[in-house]
């Protein structure tokens, strides 16, 4: 056990790589989610088809296979990626496909009356999306995005297979050197758990901010009418 503790800095460096991988992949996945999710809600047949194709293809492909493909197959046709780049691309594309479905579903779940009010104000289709539908859809996206983010963080453990020295990679190294299998894996389980909790905190913070923007929580120093008005759930009725 003390061997494991002596090598703790090694594990810390590994978790730093894991965190970086998670953040880069999440940023890519978020961008792809928004792009293909929004395309999936448009009227045009072509953009919707492109969105469908992306989602079906990359949701069905295991991140590990994608990563191997970027790392081992593409060099055969002269495209060489660093392991980090291949891993971020694979995870981003894979989780972006899940995220696009979340974005599409959330936009479609914004009450139709909001879309109609935006039409009545003569906003253009792009303005309706950017100024009315998307901001309201964010509140619906955040909880499933929180789940996906943690899924993504856990999925990064496969990158040790393309020689990236993440937390999992360091654990294997340490286990080989010390033979302390149980202690090593118990330690990194706790470390993955801590990273997951940090990500969860971030998502919770964003959820609170969005709720305040949408008037679902009292702002600082202002009592919310809905809690003051006697027995009036759904005062701000949506039609």
């Amino acid at each position, binding site marked *: 056990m003390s061997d494991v503790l002596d090598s703790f800095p090694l594990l810390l460096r590994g978790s730093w790589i894991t965190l970086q991988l998670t953040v880069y992949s999440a940023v890519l996945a978020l961008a792809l989610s928004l792009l293909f999710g929004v395309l999936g809600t448009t009227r045009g047949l072509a953009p919707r088809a492109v969105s469908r194709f992306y989602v079906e293809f990359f949701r069905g492909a295991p991140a590990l296979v994608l990563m191997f493909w970027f790392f081992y197959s593409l060099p055969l046709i002269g495209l060489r990626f660093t392991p980090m780049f291949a891993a971020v691309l694979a995870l981003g594309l894979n989780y972006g496909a899940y995220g696009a479905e979340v974005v599409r579903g959330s936009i479609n779940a914004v009450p139709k009356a909001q879309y109609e009010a935006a039409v009545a*104000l003569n906003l253009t*289709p792009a303005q309706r999306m950017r100024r009315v539908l998307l901001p309201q859809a964010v509140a619906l996206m955040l909880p499933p995005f929180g789940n996906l983010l943690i899924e993504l963080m856990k999925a990064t453990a496969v990158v040790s297979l393309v020689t990236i020295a993440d937390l999992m990679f360091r654990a294997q190294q340490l286990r080989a050197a010390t033979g302390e299998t149980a202690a090593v894996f118990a330690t990194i389980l706790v470390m993955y758990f801590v990273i997951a909790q940090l990500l969860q905190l971030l998502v919770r913070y964003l959820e609170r901010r969005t709720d305040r923007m949408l*008037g679902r929580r009292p*702002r600082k120093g202002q009592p919310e*009418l809905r809690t003051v008005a006697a027995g009036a759930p759904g005062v*701000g009725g949506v*039609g």
Partner: protein
Amino acid sequence: MPPTDTTPEAPTPEEAPKTPLSKTPLPETAPSKTPLPHGDTPGIRFEKVVKRFGGNVVLRELDFTVAPGERVTLIGPSGSGKTTILRLLMTLEKVDDGVIWIGDRSLSHMERGGRRVPANEKHLHEMRKQVGMVFQQFNLFPNMNVLRNLTEGPVHVLGVSRDEAVERARGLLDMVGLADKIDAHPSQLSGGQQQRVAIARALAMQPKVLLLDEVTSALDPELVVGVQDLLRDIARQSDLTLLCVTHEMHFARDISDRVLMFDQGQIVEEGPPEQIFGDPAEQRTRDFLQAVLAT
């Protein structure tokens, strides 16, 4: 939407509609103090308008005209097509046949290469500049405070500078009696306050035609009068063309020049409010008014 050649009886835009649908702007006298739109108000004409939802024919070759600046109330039993008429005018629905005119331009169709073709988004955008709508459920944007609900359209659609839009929003909030709520969030307002903000939001876009769809029927009884008084003032002080759906007979009497009684997508009877409410000619109108008064 059907191609043009299925409706040969409808006039092309060059053939002037039978009655003048555009009022020449009144010469500007004293600068108006109210933030309400004035001048150049268009009329409205429905010509053999057909609207179906699946197999359900809601409007069957409906014809009617609203003169520039005229204020018309639509009454009739639930399901008779009143909301559908307003939604067609707001381009939230498309006609299946026939033509809707706003002023001397067709709402549903546009000219291209001398032929009348279904309107595209650009034409709809152009036509919507003249029309504003207030909904039964207010439909304020919950992701914006009151001020931004009022400035978003003017700034991003009309291209008004932000300072000017804020100035105008202040004027409108003053008019609807909510100057102190400028920074409030819609969820912090009562239903009546939300509806007054929604009215101000529609007016901020300076429409020429205002559509009101049962705007007080979602409100608690004690809040109805305030909103009605506001609309009465607006009707009095502007020359908006007004189409109003309401079941409140007193309000309809005060606000309208003419009442149209609908049943099953057809006009059963029309006339000045005194006549329709005081001495209706049709049995169906009498039955309807009786039923409304009973509730």
